[in-house]
């Protein structure tokens, strides 16, 4: 199965054919060749229940179902595009950072409280990520949007990585994350270093970090 091929760092070419259907952010198509159809979708393969969950979770980004035979180019707002290949593992990502993903991947919504209980909820609120995040599981490819490109930082047992919540893009693998505060007296009096909160990622996996503090 031919995969996603980046035209440049901000433009992605995706082949579409029978058995090779994708979901993409609505309106992110820039050009296509062949007989390709774009159908707006609200369920995105997650079923009605999934759609309701997404809507309630605020993790619903308008998506479209791309089918047919041909090749489509995707891009969004001049943001950098990073292709991630999944082999049976799970990617955790914010819904609005997903540009395009294979229909063969199962998407779901995860309540942050499932990971860390109350502190997960607090973390979601503090970092502006909301209470839910989107998961993609299975075999296939997906493409992430970032401002300024991403770097992959490996996380290993005994080697925790701390990430600015605004620069966090996605992670995969067996990773626990929790909110790490480094607040001092100076922050309370408005003279902080601007690095009061970080996500602490521990376990085994990879975290994707963008080169900017800008949320999408």
């Amino acid at each position: 199965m031919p995969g996603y091929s980046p035209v440049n760092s901000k433009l992605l070419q995706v082949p579409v054919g029978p058995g090779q259907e994708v979901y993409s952010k609505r309106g992110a198509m820039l050009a296509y060749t062949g007989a390709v159809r774009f159908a707006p979708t609200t369920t995105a393969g997650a079923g009605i229940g999934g759609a309701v969950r997404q809507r309630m979770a605020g993790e619903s980004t308008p998506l479209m179902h791309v089918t047919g035979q041909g090749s489509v180019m995707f891009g969004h707002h001049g943001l950098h595009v990073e292709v991630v290949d999944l082999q049976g593992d799970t990617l955790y990502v914010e819904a609005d950072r997903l540009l395009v993903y294979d229909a063969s991947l199962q998407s779901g919504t995860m309540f942050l409280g499932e990971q860390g209980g109350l502190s997960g909820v607090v973390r979601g609120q503090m970092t502006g990520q909301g209470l839910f995040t989107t998961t993609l599981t299975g075999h296939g490819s997906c493409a992430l949007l970032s401002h300024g490109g991403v770097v992959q930082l490996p996380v290993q047992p005994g080697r925790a990585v701390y990430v600015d919540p605004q620069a966090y893009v996605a992670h995969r693998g067996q990773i626990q994350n929790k909110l790490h505060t480094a607040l001092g007296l100076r922050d309370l009096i408005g003279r902080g270093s601007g690095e009061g909160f970080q996500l602490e990622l521990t376990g085994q996996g990879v975290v994707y970090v963008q080169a900017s503090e800008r949320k999408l």
Partner: protein
Amino acid sequence: MNGPRMLAVDLMGETIRALNGSMVAYEGQMQFKRQGMTGGEGLMGAVRRRVAGESVTLMEITGQGTVYLAHEATEVNLVPLQGDTLLVESESLLALDGQLRTGVQFTGLRGVTTGQGLATTKVEGHGTVAILSDGPAIALEVVQGQPLSVDPQAYVAHRGQLQQDFVTDVNWRTMLGQGSGESFQLRFSGHGLVYIQPAERGDGLGAEV
């Protein structure tokens, strides 16, 4: 370096100074401390900085491990200094070695019209400075007898024995609003290097997406 837009700094207990809030990730043990009002320049330095409007908020980073710094997806350029002086716009400064000294240099008239304030930041000593540019910065060499003129909004930094003065090309067309948009330039003469970026700062350094 870790790609053109992210700077990775390995620390073994030493201290660096970086733009407030520019940390995107780190491994190991790190401490972040905002610098006081004086920023290591003493009381007079702080007063001068306040007067000049060249305020830059830096934080001190100390620890063991690797820290990743980035700012608004602008590109990072490393400039090694060996005892010489780099003059840089405060908003283009990302990080610098702890041994480097910073100060304020008054530049006179040009800042007023270019909206960059009356002064610029001076970095001197031995060490490495990371400067930000919107797009990859290039260094242009200035030699004796061949002055270089640059757009003030594309200017990032300069070093060496350079005098700068302000060139205006204002004529009646400009007055009528029919100017070419290139009415003001900075002219550098002497011997040294000038760093420019391939973008013109309209409203701050932030690249629009």
